[in-house]
């Protein structure tokens, strides 16, 4: 594996720091420890009007150590990684552990759960260009966006940018675990403003990938931003109604994020989930499946193990509408008398799908018939306990199965447990946003609040 140019610490150095922290904890009677070292380095260029508006060099590092003493734990973090700072961090964590109250479920992951070996997905593709190449790429996005501007419409490019970063992570645990992961991230983006009689709005488009060469092209990102801005012209409110709403693939996350919170082991144990005792129960329409995969090469949420050293697995979280598993770290797993699923830092790559073919976006429009298609979620939230779901959104209106006009200033509301059962179809128009792969999602029985 080649060391990139952006990271100031080598993978070996990070492992040494993590191991030093665990070794120092070993000198404290009865103590065991877990130490995690992160380092990242990156460059970021934002351009406006053919010039660099902001150029930034990032470089950060942090050691986090947790010391366990007789069912108690203390954590400590430091940005300074010299030997004296490492010792201080360990001692501070031990002092906290001596002073807190015991909880029999607080401990390191069981050694039998640890990923001493096992698959390590490829997630590192360092950037070989320099600052100048990154700036050129950002300028090229802006230039392409200007070239894509439609005539006779009040649309302008407001910024474009490009960024590359490298990340190193080492994890050491008492008992001989010491592994590390190098990863990278590259992105380019563009923003355009659209103005009409009702005001102005900015639309973004971006592409992000572990591999620079897999980014969407400069032209694709630029044109997408312009197209999105153009689509906002003439936006108005829409009629209030109760009925189906289509969530475009790029915002499918808004539905799935709530499901992940509800399946989180700690929430389940506290009774703070709108899907109580979910496993084995029909929690969604019977054609819906949500798969998790930690090991896909260059997946946005791929990792060989979690922050406790436990590997995830390729599995169904929801299969044919039935919940099949929770997201467990060690603490929630022990509280619920089961094993960690390696999800102490959340879910890995996810794929939401349906056994009923939903077709492409135009097919989904036809299935919707009349109603709202959501393309952006502006705010709002979901009550994690009751599942009451309410959001401020914008998008476009569909009449007779065809796109009618852009809409804004709308609210949508529903009850998450009902919404999951009311999923009518998931489209074949699959997009990947963050760690989630999904098509557009058609959900019936939503309350749409509008003013016209």
């Amino acid at each position, binding site marked *: 594996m080649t060391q990139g140019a952006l990271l100031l610490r080598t993978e070996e150095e990070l492992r040494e720091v993590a191991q030093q922290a665990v070794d120092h904890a070993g000198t404290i009677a009865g103590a065991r420890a877990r130490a995690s070292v992160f380092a990242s380095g990156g460059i970021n260029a934002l351009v406006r009007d053919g010039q660099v508006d902001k150029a930034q060099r990032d470089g950060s590092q942090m050691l986090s150590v947790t010391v366990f003493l007789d069912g108690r734990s203390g954590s400590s*973090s430091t940005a300074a990684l010299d030997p004296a700072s490492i010792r201080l961090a360990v001692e501070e964590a031990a002092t906290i552990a001596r*002073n807190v109250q015991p909880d029999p479920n607080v401990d390191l992951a069981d050694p039998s759960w640890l990923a001493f070996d096992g698959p390590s997905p490829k997630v590192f593709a360092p950037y070989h260009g320099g600052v100048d190449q990154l700036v050129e790429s950002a300028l090229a996005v802006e230039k392409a966006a200007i070239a894509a501007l439609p005539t006779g419409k009040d649309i302008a490019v407001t910024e474009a940018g490009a960024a590359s970063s490298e990340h190193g992570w080492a994890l050491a645990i008492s008992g001989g675990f010491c592994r590390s992961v190098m990863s990278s991230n590259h992105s380019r983006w563009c923003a355009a403003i659209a103005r009409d009689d009702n005001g102005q709005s900015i639309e973004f488009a971006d592409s992000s990938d572990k591999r620079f060469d897999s980014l969407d092209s400069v032209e694709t990102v630029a044109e997408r931003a312009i197209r999105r801005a153009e689509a906002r012209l003439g936006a108005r409110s829409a009629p209030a109604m109760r009925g189906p709403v289509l969530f475009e693939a790029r915002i499918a996350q808004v539905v799935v994020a709530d499901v992940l919170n509800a399946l989180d082991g700690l929430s389940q144990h506290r009774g703070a989930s709108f899907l109580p005792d979910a496993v084995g129960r029909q929690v969604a329409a019977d054609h819906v499946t949500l798969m998790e995969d930690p090991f896909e090469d260059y997946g946005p949420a791929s990792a060989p193990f979690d922050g406790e050293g436990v590997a995830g697995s390729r599995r169904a979280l929801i299969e044919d509408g039935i919940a099949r598993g929770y997201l467990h770290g060690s603490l929630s797993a022990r509280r619920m008398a089961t094993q960690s699923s390696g999800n102490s830092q959340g879910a890995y790559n996810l794929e939401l799908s349906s056994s009923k073919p939903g077709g492409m976006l135009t097919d989904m429009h036809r299935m919707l018939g009349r109603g709202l298609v959501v393309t952006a979620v502006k*705010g709002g939230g979901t*009550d994690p306990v009751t599942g009451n779901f309410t959001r401020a959104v914008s998008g476009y209106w569909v009449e007779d199965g065809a796109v009618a006009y852009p809409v804004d200033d709308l609210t949508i509301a529903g009850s998450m447990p009902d919404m999951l059962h009311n999923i009518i179809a998931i489209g074949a128009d699959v997009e990947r946003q963050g760690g989630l792969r999904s098509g557009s999602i058609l959900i019936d029985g939503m309350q749409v609040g509008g003013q016209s």
Partner: protein
Amino acid sequence: MNGGTQALDLARARLWDRSELDEATVVRAIGTLASRGADLADLYFESVRSRQWNLENGQVSNGSFTIDQGVGARTSREGRVAFAYSADFRPEALLDVAAAAQSLRRDGVDSAEAGGLRLASRSSSHDLYAMIDPVEQAQAEICIALLQKVDAMARAADPRIVDVRANIGAADKVMLVVDQDAQMAADVRPVLRLFVQVIAEAKGRRAQGMDGIGGRYGIERFDDAAVGAMVANAVRQATVNLDARPAPSGVMSVVLGPGYPGVLFHEAIGHGLEGDHHRLKLSAFTGMLGKQIASKGVTVIDDGGMSERLGSVAMDDEGTPADRTVLIEDGILVGMMQDRLNAGMMNWKRTGNGRRQSYAHLPMPRMTNTYLGAGEEDPADIIASVGRGIYAPAFGGGQVDIVSGRFNFSTTEAWLIEDGKLTAPVEGATLIGIGHEALKHISRIGNDLALDAGQASCGKQGQNLSVSVGQPTLRIDEMMVGGRGE
């Protein structure tokens, strides 16, 4: 007393002396940043120690301690900025980070290194918050006792409370900024926060409630009265929400309670009056200066100089002293919040709003303590004036699109108003509007101005800061309420 030479001495000891950093090296680094025609440059040194204790299941079984520190180096010419930062304070690292920032500048002019600089202090002392160390105060014994008291109070307040989570967070930030003229300023900023979240259960239904308090003060402020009021709020919210029915949907009158609901003005107006979006002509309020944008009687102020408030900064992160900026006066837009870069380019006065999350982030114009001033009406009369609408005393937070002025925020406690009376609690709803339009629909302003109790924070372009928000009870006609009822 804080600031002045006392803060400067402490900052130099904690930030420079331990890394054997001397004045000559700092002067060389700032000289590098100020060279090649820079019209703005600074070095920002920071060290933050923080401590947190968490309670769940009636036990405090973990706690954490963090030391983060670093230096940010900025150089700018005509608004174009280059920035680099490092967690390493050693002399050679400081010179490297200054050189890295300067090398990112592509518009440099060939001119001599800025020479002849000498460090000088320009921070003055203040009494907005004391130079205490809440991290030292927040030791295990006292915090565990306090958190267990929160747990006991919540469970005793109502037998339907089945779960309590609470945490205490303490932080001590020491910062020192050196600008292109080698002027130094330093400040020591304490932060203390307490947060509680409860779940109530009855008849197979569950609901949550939450509240928090905090300030730039010592732990003695977490007395029984303050903690008791916070717990009572959280318990009331949870138990009220047990009986909540679906919120209505549609355009109606909304009465906002005093205090934290002021987050509406933070979102709907405040962000649109930060100088950066104005300079780029990207604010929904661009071109409205001097115009009547709100109902008469509406006055909105940003004041970084309020005693012990989490949004208070005696001087901002660029060394500009705190100011009280009137943004809207009797309905007319009169002010704007500025940092150094935008004030300089717009030929506007600096207002002490140049804030940054940390050394790893660039400063930008940010709010401090922002509130809508008191009116004269009795809050009870305001509720009684509404035929059908909702009353919202608690919110979970909100967002704004600065460019369009569109904002939204979500209730965590709300009631239906029918014929002037609160008749039933309703579930959370998202309220939406457009800042400059909502302002025109403010029809009644209460006499009960309050600021939030210390639970507010603000995110902008990925940077989080503590702020305060506030307002009296207010009636806004014609707001879009998005509940799941009809």
